[in-house]
């Protein structure tokens, strides 16, 4: 299959330092061996609760934080092994959209400059075409041409997010990492941004890594979905598979936790007990066993393997290993 990026056993441990001499006393296992690939022109949705490491994955793929180990193959090259210079050359190919549209735009730059800065940096278009190019990108993102000279403080959250999208798009990327791009927006604006992302994908054959905690949005926009818990993927399958036939108890619980806007549906909800354990000190065995409603003896001792149970439906759970 034609994959835009292949991530293999990505690990990111943050050292916990203590004492005068900053001795390393432990590690926060933010991402603990994650592998996935994103098909060209498709969207990979990454779901999980806060602290599960989904944001860290997005940042390491851009090398905004350096990974501890693992590889990420983009166009046959490992991003993690690139030198600074090589990295800069491929930067335009992978772009990012951030969650907070208020923090992700430099308040002292006009919109045109925000979008165009990197275009000039990488000489995406010639000087003569520059202005038209920026205006075209802005138009594609639903921004009026006269916004060019305005400053970010004049825009609402939704428009700011459009500016962020335009900035990413202007570099003509093939992969966009969108880290919770709509969760800070109002409901009616969320839909606009999601639709914009979808339209752009169709038009430009973009691939997305869509990181979100909002399952209904992920279901709507993704083709393949991975569910993360405490630094590991616990389940990964095509959207249809995962949402129709979730296998991992955690995925099931996540799905049933989403409130349905229909007063007649009284859901039989699986409510998980307790809180997410600290990633600095994850439980032994299966990391989910402390909250799992179907926990068995083996779960407390042995970590389940991430296996394919047909239909490209991969799960890490002892429940299914037994039956096979």
């Amino acid at each position, binding site marked *: 299959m034609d994959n835009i990026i292949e991530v293999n056993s990505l690990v990111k441990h943050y050292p916990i330092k203590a004492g005068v001499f900053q001795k390393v006393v432990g590690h926060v296992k933010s991402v603990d061996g994650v592998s996935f690939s994103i098909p060209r022109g498709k969207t990979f949705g990454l779901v999980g609760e806060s602290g599960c490491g989904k944001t860290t994955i997005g940042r390491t793929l851009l090398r905004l934080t350096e990974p501890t180990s693992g590889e990420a193959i983009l166009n046959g090259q490992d991003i993690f092994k690139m030198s600074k210079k090589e990295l800069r050359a491929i930067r335009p190919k992978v772009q990012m959209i951030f969650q907070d549209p208020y923090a992700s735009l430099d308040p002292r730059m006009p919109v045109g400059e925000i979008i165009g800065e990197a275009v000039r940096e990488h000489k995406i278009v010639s000087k003569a075409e520059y202005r038209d190019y920026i205006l075209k990108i802005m138009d594609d993102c639903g921004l009026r041409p006269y916004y060019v000279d305005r400053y970010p403080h004049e825009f609402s959250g939704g428009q700011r997010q459009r500016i962020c999208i335009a900035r990413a798009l202007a570099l003509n990327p093939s992969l966009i990492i969108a880290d919770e791009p709509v969760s800070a927006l109002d409901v009616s604006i969320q839909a606009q941004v999601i639709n914009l992302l979808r339209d752009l994908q169709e038009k430009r054959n973009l691939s997305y890594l869509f990181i979100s905690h909002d399952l209904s949005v992920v279901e709507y926009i993704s083709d393949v979905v991975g569910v993360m818990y405490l630094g590991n993927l616990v389940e990964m399958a095509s959207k249809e598979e995962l949402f129709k036939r979730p296998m991992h108890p955690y995925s099931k*619980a996540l799905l049933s936790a989403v409130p*349905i*806007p229909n007063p007649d549906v009284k859901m039989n909800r699986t*409510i998980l007990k307790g*809180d997410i354990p600290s990633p600095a000190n994850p439980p032994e065995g299966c990391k989910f066993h402390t909250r799992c409603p179907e926990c068995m003896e083996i779960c407390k001792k042995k970590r389940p393997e991430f296996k394919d149970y047909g239909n490209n439906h991969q799960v890490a759970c002892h429940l299914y290993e037994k039956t096979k």
Partner: protein
Amino acid sequence: MAELTEKQEKKAKMKEIKKTNALMYKKFNQEKKRKNIPESEYITTMRDTDNIIELDNLKTYFYTDAGTVKAVDGVSFDIPKGKTIGVVGESGCGKSVTSLSIMRLLQGPQGQIAGGKIRYNQDNRAIDLTKISNKEMQKIRGNEISMIFQEPMTSLNPIFTIGDQLSEPIELHNPEMSKEQVKNRVIELLKLVGIARAEGIIHNYPHELSGGMKQRVVIAMALSCSPRLIIADEPTTALDVTIQAQILDLLRDLKDKINASIMLITHDLGVVAEMADYVVVMYAGRVVEQGTVKEIFHDPKHPYTIGLMKSRPVLNEEIGRLYSIPGNVPNPIGMPSHCFFKNRCEKCIEKCAGDYPELISVTDTHKVSCHLYQKET
């Protein structure tokens, strides 16, 4: 020349704004200073004695330097006893300001209740919360009406233990209770909100608890004096999905146990559908639609409500393209005289350019403010 007059006009306008602001601040301060307000001024009668709160044409304005922001502009709805009412809307629609008006916690001197009534049904009398003295309000606040805020992290004081924070309101409103009794009550409350090791937790500090636990403590705090109305302002927005499910489950459970009304403020339609009996949809400071939860979700009338419902993808439901309401949430200063939603409305008709539509009753409980449903007269 034209520019000059424009400048002058602007200056005059600024002056005007300043003048009205100063006037309003003065009036507000005078009202605040009054200590003994005769009963006759605030005693009213409820329209329906089954209601705990009746908002009647409530107007809450913010007198800012840029002009008057009509955050709540003539909102009327009732909160029946023992029921849950969901207030839905986007940021800046006035849903939080409505709740702060009920609690009389508006940021002075800019924010003031400019008109209307908030009738509150006490045991044997009905009073107007907009008129009573601050001292009187203090007795009601936290005791009869309590509030749950969005951020559990910021609504707990980091330097006191959970036990201290919970016992404070109990001691304050029940001076006759002994220390032992207060402690027992605290533990009872913590058990009520589903904290198993209540005896242990009272000695903990807020930072030692997780987000979900903190929100439970905040809820316990709101329940501490057996309030008659609980205002929950986005109680689950800051929480993770699985924790949100826990909290919602808890709230639903409590609803039956404590016999209080709940005013649930949220932007999440899913939460409303699960929790509420009645729904009020607000847009730009006004109620655009209200009704029972079934009426609103099965038969939404206002184009804004319809748009809101369609713009959220629903789990396990195939949809082609997501519907989206065009345009932006409007700027709250200098609103037009026509329907506020006109510029974003796809069903806009000729009449919409005219006056603001009145609230029209579709059924006894279902009301909508839209020209589309105006009966021809």
